[in-house]
Each structure stands twice: as structure tokens, then as C-alpha cells.
């Protein structure tokens, strides 16, 4: 499981450098995400642009990552493939997460708000 990250002023963009988050890598994803949010700024954007497949284990791991953020910290998602978006939609998890069309709009969102 490869997660790359890049820090901007008060946002950390975590990019999943794999094309799937599934049962075979869900636990590893969860653990690595926890480490990246613990040491991260108040806003984490998870860039799913490379992820073409996410199953229920992968979804569970993304939910676990949301639950692992510290008080006051936010985890948002960006650049979901239609197949991944559909899993969020079917399970209604798209109502729980803030989802951005792209990483750039997600990061700009902060610039505009501040």
C-alpha cells in the first residue's frame, strides 16, 4: 500500500498510489492513514484519483480513517472514480463525507474560505 502526501499551509493531501483499496490491503491502508492524520494539519484531503476499485473492506477502511482523525481535524475525499463514487452512493456514505470533484478544487476551497 503506497500513500504519498504533500503538505500545503494547513492542508495535507494524501494520494493513494494504488489502483484499488480492497480486502487485501484495507488494514494496511487504515494503519497508514492513521499515522498520516495523527501527525497532520487540521485538514486532510484523501486523493482517490488513482483508485479504480473499492470494495466494502476498502469502504470500511476509509470510514475508519475518518473516525481516527483527532478532535477538530477534518478528513475530506477528492477525485472519486465513478465506480468508487457508486459504492459511496449505494451505502449513503456520500452523505457522511465531504467529497470534492478534484484535489485542486478541494485545496482551493480552503484558500477561498480563508
Amino acid at each position, binding site marked *: 500500500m503506497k500513500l504519498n502526501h504533500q503538505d500545503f499551509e494547513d492542508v495535507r493531501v494524501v494520494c493513494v498510489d494504488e489502483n*484499488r483499496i*480492497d*480486502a*487485501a490491503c484495507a488494514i494496511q491502508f487504515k494503519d497508514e492513514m492513521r499515522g498520516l492524520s495523527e501527525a497532520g494539519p487540521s485538514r486532510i484531503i484523501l486523493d482517490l484519483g488513482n483508485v479504480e*476499485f473499492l*470494495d*466494502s*473492506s476498502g*469502504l*470500511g*477502511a476509509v*470510514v*475508519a480513517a*475518518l*473516525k481516527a482523525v483527532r478532535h477538530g481535524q477534518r478528513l475530506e475525499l477528492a477525485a472519486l472514480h*465513478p*465506480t468508487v463514487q*457508486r*459504492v459511496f452512493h*449505494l*451505502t*449513503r*456514505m456520500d*452523505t*457522511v463525507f465531504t467529497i470534492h470533484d478534484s484535489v485542486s478544487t478541494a485545496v482551493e476551497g480552503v484558500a477561498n474560505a480563508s
Partner: protein
Amino acid sequence: MRPEGNLQSKVVRRVAPQSKENELRIILPARENAVRRGLKSIKSGLGPIGFSSDELASLELVLAEILNNIVEHAYRGNEAGIIEIQLSQTTAGLWCTVIDTGAMMPNGEPPLGMQCDLNCDVADLPEGGFGWFLIRELVHDLEYTHEEGQNRLSFRMSIGRLN
């Protein structure tokens, strides 16, 4: 081969009598990485015969949920387990049968897979239980039997209909 106690002969494959050219049969060991490879083979096998990428994505999701459940719950990590997948393309869509010899499903039937209640604090959000909900959202005519130690799950997906 000994004619009397040959275990193989007991595993009767009840393959429906349909034309072979629209069938795909894959056998894989009950391991997460083998499931990944099996899904890849199925996608590359069906892609060229008229399945759209959306249709293949639905099939991959359904099969991933079913196969990983078998690895995790039916065989409980016993990597000697074997899973057989039969796919048959018909005018009604794609019929799928998944066979294993692991533990029976709880209460002898596939879980209902209810929509999770998300009206709760983030800390209480469910991290699992989505699998059977997703399967039931995407398949039709789901049937399950457990006979002579064999689990047999079959269903239809409205994809890749033959004209």
C-alpha cells in the same frame, strides 16, 4: 485412479447444459491475492465480448464481496480452500455460480445486508456490514444451497445480455 474411493468423483459439477462459448469457469485458491488475480482474469476475459466497463465494475464488486466473504468466513483463512466460479452469458444477463466447501452461511442463508443507519456520531459509524447490502443491491434471483458440504451461491446480473 482408484475406482472405489476417488474423492474427486464425488464432487459432481452440475454445470447447466448451455453453449460453452458463452461460459467462463475459474477455479482459485481461497486467498485474498488469488481473488484479486481471479477478478482480473474475469475482467480481461469478458471485456472483449461486449461487456462495458460499468458492467464489469459491477461484476467485479459483487464477486469481490462474495469471494472475500468465502476466504474470510467460509474457509476462515484456510488457504487450502478452493473456490469455483462459473459465469454464463444468456439473453437474461450473466448468470453466476460460486461454489466452495467451507463453512455453511450463518442460519443456512445469505445475510440480508440491511442499509446501515448513518444518523449517528462519526465515532459510531459502521466500518463493516456493507458487503451483503451491496451484493443484494446489484444482483437478481439470489439463491443459496448447502448440500453435501458444498456451498453453492447463484445469481443473475443484468449485464452483457445476449441478443
